[in-house]
């Protein structure tokens, strides 16, 4: 397995669009061609070779040194692996349809937005709109998995249709906003207005919640599917431990009744 490494030459002078650095795009090029590839830097452009020291050989894995100003890392990824040592900027893994993006630090806004497939793993925290929708779009995430060890910001899983998001820490306000389907696991505390506008889908969390008025309290339930879900999670890598250990017992709310009301909030015991 061949690996190509990008090490930053120095601090970034502006935000960089790193979306061209996808393994399958680079696999067909040699190092000189890759070094000459233009990247957007602020309002201008810069060659890859002026920003990074390159080593290794192009193949199915790309290793990047991370930076908070490196945006669109792995956006549109369809196969192979990108591993980022450190944090990434905004929109990491936007619209990815396959492959694996591993961020060893934290991610900025809208990581995994409009994701269709593949696995996005974030070891640190994620910003707002994790696994959300692109601006103006009716559907957010439609497939794949997002696994976050730390916490996430507001509107995680907005307009989600399919797939799985597991957040080890706390979630911000408006989690699963206008969710259509799919599963969102919150290992820590859910934020305010969780599930607003939900039509369908499942949000799992621990502890108490002050559910929105659009949700009907269905009391304590024994739900066999939760054990099945737990078995499934045990087979996956990187699932935050706080999301595991589902016993099957959960308090259940159904809603949001202003929007069809077939979504569920499950407070798992």
């Amino acid at each position: 397995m061949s690996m190509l490494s990008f090490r930053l030459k120095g601090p970034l002078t502006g935000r960089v669009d790193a979306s061209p650095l996808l393994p399958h795009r680079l696999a067909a090029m040699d190092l000189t061609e890759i070094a000459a590839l233009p990247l957007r830097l602020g309002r201008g452009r810069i060659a890859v070779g002026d920003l990074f020291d390159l080593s290794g050989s192009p193949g199915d894995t790309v290793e990047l040194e991370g930076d908070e100003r490196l945006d669109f890392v792995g956006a549109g990824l369809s196969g192979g692996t990108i591993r980022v040592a450190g944090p990434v900027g905004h929109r990491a893994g936007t619209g990815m349809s396959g492959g694996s993006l591993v961020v060893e630090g934290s991610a900025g806004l809208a990581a995994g937005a409009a994701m269709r497939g593949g696995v996005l793993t974030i070891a640190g925290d994620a910003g707002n709109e994790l696994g959300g929708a692109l601006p103006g779009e009716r559907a957010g995430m439609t497939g794949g998995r997002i696994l976050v060890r730390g916490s996430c910001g507001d509107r995680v899983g907005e307009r989600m249709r399919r797939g799985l998001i597991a957040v080890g820490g706390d979630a911000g306000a408006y989690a699963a906003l206008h969710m259509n389907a799919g599963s969102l696991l919150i290992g820590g505390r859910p934020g305010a207005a969780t599930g607003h506008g939900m039509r369908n889908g499942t949000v799992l969390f621990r502890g108490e919640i002050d559910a929105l008025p659009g949700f009907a309290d269905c009391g304590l339930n024994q739900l066999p599917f939760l054990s099945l879900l737990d078995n499934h999670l045990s087979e996956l890598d990187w699932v935050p431990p706080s999301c595991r250990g589902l016993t099957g017992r959960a308090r259940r709310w159904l809603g949001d009744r202003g929007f069809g009301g077939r979504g569920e909030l499950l407070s798992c015991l």
Partner: protein
Amino acid sequence: MSDAYTLLRGGRVCDPTGATDGGDLRDLYLKDGRIAATPPEDARIGEVVDLDGRIVMAGAIDIHSHIGGGKVNLARLLLPEEHREHGSAPDGLRRSGSGLFTPSSFVTGYRYAEMGYTAAFEPAMLPSNARHTHLELADVPIIDKGCYAVLGNDDFLLERLAAGATQSEVNDYVAWMLHATQAVGVKVVNPGGISAFKFNQRRLDLDEAHPHYGITPRRILTTLATALSDLRVPHPLHIHCNNLGIPGNESVTRDTIAALDGLPAHLTHLQFHSYGTEGDRRFSSAAAEIAESVNRNPNISVDVGQIIFGQTITASADIMSQFRNSGLASPRKWVCTDIECDGGCGLVPFRYRDKAFVNALQWAIGLELFLLIEDPWRVYLTTDHPNGGPFTSYPHLIRLLMDRSFRNEQLARINPDVAAHSRLGSIDREYTLEEIAIMTRAGPARVLGLRDRGHLRAGAVADVVVYDDLPDREAMFAAPALVFKNGRLVARNGELTATGWGDTIVVRPEFDPAIERRLKPWFEDHQTVRLGNFRIADGEILDHGRGGLSIVPTLTASDSCF
């Protein structure tokens, strides 16, 4: 200002206003942003541009193009994917932007200028959206722009007409609105129909009474057309007829022409109003009948609203037709909304498909209208951007008109039933360069009352476009060799070289301000802003430092009101 002249030497000047012939080579002098008369021998000549016999025309004028204001913005919001996929990055000259068929404001100005267009008119400015529209147009660089205020479905007018208002009261109201909204004309969209839609009417014919106000579209039309004629506003009533897009609507279109009874009027996007009900599919071309009616009535000018195959979005104040068509939305999302009880707004994304009989016939109907209406002074080139297709398809459309074999090639490619149902294949006419110059420059300028635009005589604004005389007219018109706006070179070979700001063109007819006594309480009782705040001051346009106001003079007795 420099005292030196710019000399454009040896071009084949194509100016159909009679000043030149189009054949022999001629020199053109530009000074202080205007075309100058041939200067004296000792005059200082600054820059000299050798044109080597290239074709020279005035800057083109788009008489009907939805480029700004509430509904265009909603259209942009409705199709975020269009803007994601078609971004344009900033460079030393340009600001960034996005979009293809609803381009953002800056991109709109750049694209028009690169195509040799130096003025475009936003045809559907609802009075309550006027401020937004002007603010947005202040972000459209280079080109001159103007707006038509949409009247005819506003409750004030309908209520006053129902109460038996006199013509002079309507005249004052129309003039007040032109001033208050900084407009250059008045458009009526589906007269009475938008309002009737809100009373659950789904179709309204010319002599059908409005379900609430009891007045007919005929009355609204004739009253407004008379008002503009009485006020001596150069651009006559800009009419979007009733029953847009409905098979068989050609009768309402012809009745509208008849109802005007000699009053000057402009019928817009006529293609959408020229449908018959013949054939197995109950959908046929009535272009011949409509064209004949236009040919017989010299008081009527039209623009076509040609459709171009591909994805676009239809944006119209005609909520009645947009609601009817909402099921055809592609992609499947649409918006219909009321705006301040002033009018409506409907947005339906649409893909015109060349293999679909209806779309292909619409394409043929538009071309038939272009080719069967004999007087190029009265038919103007539009796609009703973005409704029929984006304005960037004009060069393609020009080629369809100028090149018969190209046209027939396209006809052979589309749904085969169309060739059988349309007379397009048998029409031999090919537009000449001079006729193109009329329908894209001199004609629109005349019908808008722009005395110093659309021609190249001394005194005209120095909006000059130089074309290479290529056999492929599409390539020729897509990328003019040189484009001058106000005497400054702004594009070369279809690439922007400089940017700047055009004027906002308005008209200011005289009226009796006593109308405000009636309007003030109306605003207080029914509108969200007071009358004093509603009116747009000149400073709101001028203070941006983005172009001036250009006031179109009203017609005088000596003007031939065509």
